[in-house]
């Protein structure tokens, strides 16, 4: 049986229509314009961010997590415009972020690490212990909570990264390649967790695996060369491939539609 979390904020009226709203967003990675005029609007639910390597997904995730500053255009997170003088702490308290590379101090235990991040996220001190315990349970690591990080497998480290991301019950959760290193069984329980989280938060999952998106996301943003070339429902993505309607809807159909869209985006790009 699935349990649904009721938080104090669940009943508060939201003052914004979209958790993420970007208009002509530009983000630089070094000297490169990795995100180049992107438009985006994301509300509550699980959204997939698809695209080939180098499309600008990680750079976009870093800007949405407030880790790097936009180089141009407009960005609004949880109703707060990301102007140079914006109060970032207001947004950051309600943010969860799992970066592409999540390292660790080998001598930390799982619980120490998650509690440390709860503290950085300004979770009230009497709630740090219970919040960390719950996050660790949700990612299925309760039996390893007291173990040192260096004893964990790659998939487990990834799940600790997931636990720190959700320890403050974020309203905006950004996960960059979260399924890296997970075995098939872990992927299934991870998708269940995603659906649970997406019921009252905006979850953006960046991945290059089409199957991740097909299994757990309500809609898809497809990126290519720093721009969004498609944003809409999974059905809308399938409609982009004429062959998909006749076949069964599954990984391969999504994969074909994805390839077709990318090909046409590249053709347009070269023509322009």
């Amino acid at each position, binding site marked *: 049986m699935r349990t649904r979390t009721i938080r104090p904020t669940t009943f508060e009226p939201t003052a914004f229509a979209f958790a993420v709203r970007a208009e002509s967003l530009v983000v*630089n*990675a*070094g000297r490169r314009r990795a995100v180049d005029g992107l438009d985006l609007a994301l509300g509550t639910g699980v959204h997939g961010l698809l695209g080939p390597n180098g499309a600008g997904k990680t750079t976009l995730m*870093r800007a949405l*997590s*407030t*880790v*790097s*500053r936009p180089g141009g255009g407009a960005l609004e997170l949880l109703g707060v415009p990301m102007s*140079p*003088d914006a109060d*970032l*702490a*207001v947004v*950051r*308290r309600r*943010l969860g*972020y*799992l*970066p592409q*590379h*999540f*390292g*660790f*101090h080998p*001598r*930390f*235990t799982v*619980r*120490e*690490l998650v*509690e*440390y*991040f709860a*503290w*950085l*996220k*300004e979770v009230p001190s009497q709630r*740090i*212990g219970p919040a*960390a*315990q719950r996050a660790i349970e949700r990612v299925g690591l309760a039996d390893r*909570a*007291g173990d040192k990080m260096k004893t964990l497998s790659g998939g487990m480290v990834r799940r600790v990264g997931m636990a*720190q991301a959700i320890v403050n019950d974020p309203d905006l959760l950004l996960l960059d390649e979260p399924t890296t290193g997970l075995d098939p069984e872990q992927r299934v329980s991870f998708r269940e967790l995603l659906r649970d989280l997406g019921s009252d938060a905006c979850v953006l999952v960046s991945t290059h695996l089409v199957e991740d998106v097909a299994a757990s996301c309500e809609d898809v943003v497809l990126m290519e060369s720093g721009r969004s070339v498609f944003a809409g429902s999974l059905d809308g993505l399938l409609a982009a491939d004429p062959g998909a309607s006749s076949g069964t809807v599954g990984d391969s159909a999504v994969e074909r539609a994805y390839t077709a869209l990318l090909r046409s985006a590249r053709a347009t790009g070269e023509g322009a």
Partner: protein
Amino acid sequence: MTTWHAPEALLRAYAAQAAPPAAAVSLEAHLDTCADCRARLAQALPAATASVLATARAGVLARVASEPSPVPARRWRSRVVRSAPLAWLLGCLAVLTSASALDVGSTQRPALVLLLSPALPLIGVAAAWGSRLDPYAEVTASTPAAGLSLLLRRTLTVLLAVVPVAGGVGLVRGAPGPGLWLLPCLGVTAVALALGGVVGLQRATATLGAAWAAAVVLPGIAGTGVPAAVTAQAGPWWAAVCALSLLVLVLRRSAYAALPR
């Protein structure tokens, strides 16, 4: 609000496992929401069923009480201090001890401890924000704790670690006391933080370290007298440098709100 409550006859039939299935299902739905009827059902239970339930309840409670409760580990604060800077602290101690060993018997040139101490915090400060050596730099930058206050807190930790070590080594080996190197030490650190807001903390600390080596350490070793930067006359200048750097740092604090790149 519910006005309907389970009739006594239905409760008795249900307790005796004799209620019709449809009635039992709707009664269960009502019991979920009504504490009064749950209490009445408990009264209606046959003695045998009631004793089984009581035994089960006692068993569950005993089991819960015997299991170790999740222990909140509060040790991470000390671990943060221990894990990263420990190696660096030992490094500082090694550098200063060998420097003071080299000082013995040499009266021609200023003490190496004096020449090196002001620049030692730079290595620790370099790791305080956005360092590639910090496995959490990226996530940390997305938390509300990130920013100037976290940077200053970590810098303070570095200074609180290095100053007593340098002072202690100086005391033991008879090198000049902190009176000569404490202000330069604070000044160099403050300049690193202010400059770091413009060019990035790693580049700033590397540049300053190189500049300190070229302008102070090398001339000192070469024996051209005590470098002006670590003399008593330089004290007021270093105080001014500290104040100016902190002013720049506060005015440009938004530079530390996000990672550079």
